[in-house]
């Protein structure tokens, strides 16, 4: 093939394409390092204990940190409860309804988070009368996390070796016992990777929260309804457009905390993927 072209020209083209592939790979990685660099450098002057002792109104971030942790824990709890058992249904029971659920789980991952936010605002905040609240915000996040937890649970359960399940059946265990005692236990690390990814996604969400959690300069009150909640992504978004340098620093520190959390969760998940999914 390519007999019309000399070998030299073909080799030159080959080397050019090798170069282009390498160059574009580097081009895509530069922003990653620059994001980390820019966020770290700009938040460095503001790094002090104030962040953990004062609220956003006084130059700290403790209300946003506490709010983010509160919302993520709350929504993770709901998403794990719903997602793991939905995954069990998809992997172990199934039938025609399962393929519908599977399709709709994929649909749900594709729903833009701002659409979930608008839905949450009109339905939870206004119609249900919950007001700006942890409950409305956590439910919005749950809707976003649910399909990830569900599908990973399904994938993980499908990797359980059939001889383990058959061994359990042979010992006289019922299906429900086998799922709870054998399959879920074996698949737990795989399920956990999905949960970690869902947690990292919900930690970084802003659009579904702006009109469900609103924002608060105070620590979360613990009340589930009628009590706005602060969170980190809001600080990044809103404070960077304030005219004060101190507000900008808060925005950068909020981003730094987000990046550190997301990166460490990502590394954890990757480590578990390598250990478990590969085996």
């Amino acid at each position, binding site marked *: 093939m390519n007999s019309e072209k000399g070998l030299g020209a073909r080799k030159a*083209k080959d080397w050019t394409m090798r170069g282009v592939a390498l160059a574009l790979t580097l*081009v895509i990685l530069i922003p990653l390092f*620059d994001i980390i660099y820019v*966020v770290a450098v700009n938040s460095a002057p503001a790094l002090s204990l104030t962040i953990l002792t004062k609220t956003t109104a006084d130059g700290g971030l403790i209300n946003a940190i506490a709010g983010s942790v509160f919302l993520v824990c709350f929504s993770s709890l709901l998403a794990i409860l719903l997602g793991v*058992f939905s995954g069990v249904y998809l992997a172990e029971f199934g039938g025609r309804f399962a393929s519908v659920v599977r399709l*709709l789980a994929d649909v749900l991952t*594709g729903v833009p988070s701002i659409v979930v936010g608008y839905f949450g605002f009109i339905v939870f905040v206004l119609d249900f009368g919950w007001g700006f609240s942890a409950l409305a915000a956590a439910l919005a996040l749950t809707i976003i996390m649910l399909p990830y937890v569900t599908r990973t649970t399904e994938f993980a359960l499908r990797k359980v070796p059939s001889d383990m399940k058959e061994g359990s059946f042979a010992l006289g265990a019922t299906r429900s016992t086998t799922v709870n005692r054998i399959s879920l236990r074996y698949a737990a690390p795989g399920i956990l990777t999905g949960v970690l990814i869902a947690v990292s996604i919900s930690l970084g969400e802003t659009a579904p929260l702006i009109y469900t959690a609103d924002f608060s300069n105070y620590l979360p009150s613990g009340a589930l309804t009628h009590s706005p909640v602060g969170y980190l992504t809001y600080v990044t978004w809103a404070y960077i457009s304030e005219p004060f340098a101190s507000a900008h620093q808060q925005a950068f520190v909020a981003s730094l905390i987000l*990046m550190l959390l997301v990166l460490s969760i990502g590394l954890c998940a990757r480590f578990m993927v390598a250990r478990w999914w590969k085996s």
Partner: protein
Amino acid sequence: MRKRESPRDRAYGLAVAIVAASIPVFVFGILLFLIEYSLPAIKFNGLGFFTGTSWNLGDFNAVKFITKNGVEGLPGASFGILIFLAGTLASSTIALLIAIPTSIAVALFTVEDAPRRVREPLIALVDLLAGVPSVVYGLWGLVVLVPLMERTVAPDLASTLGFIPFFGGATGAGYGLLTSGLVLALMVTPIVSSTVRESFAKTPPDVKEAALALGCTKWEMERKVVLPYSKTTIAGASLLGLGRAFGETMAVLMVGGGAGAVAYLPSNVYSPISTMATVIVSLLDSAVTDPTKLALYSLAEVALVLFLITLSANMLARLFVHGGIAKALVSGGREN
């Protein structure tokens, strides 16, 4: 195994099926809510919704509401989304034009060129890009990309490529279509790339070796074996990326330059833009004040259209790639 169904098993199966029904409940809940809630707006706005270029809540001091197709609105109210539709489509198109070749290059380098020791860390880094929160992309775009665009990139592009339509003209303040497209490209690339990489890695090695044995250079082998083998995956992954770009809100809100909502169609790639996703955030505060609620209904119509557009992109993608975004993110290209 069916024979082992005891009453307890049946109860357990029923219980998990009920839990699994939460997914259809959420999807149809959102969809039916959007349809029902936007119904008055659909009647009031008609087809002008897609062709109109003004988003006007109408006269708040009016004594009497007007009625159109049986729906009450403020006098002078008109809701058209052409500008936002154009912003969404233009920014996503730019993003994909950049992201598709880049993703293929990154995937090719990872699978074919990268030394074994570099491969794993490289995959980890590209996947980390997928995990960066969109506000952080927005923040970076705002403090790094926007000034760079304003001072050098946009003026340079306009002076060298100004003869190409949409590249000439006023270069603006760094916020706008091109900046949004670049940030979106960065956000979409890891998703497209990880899906494509997974498929590249599955190219049958004997066919690759046969091509090399026939005297192909590595690039000729890639172009004639690896790429054709994965063309449906590339199409599917691109559609997944497109769905992502359509729905992205925060990053575009921060670098698009559409504080409030942009009132003009983009005239070139440096024009400020609003997208359907960003206007839901920027117009909701004012919409709440509309005594007829028509602005809220119209925003629901925006959300419905956005939902349907992303849905069609994702469903098309599903024809090509199985498992969708969830699988791309979770398996890190390792699912078998």
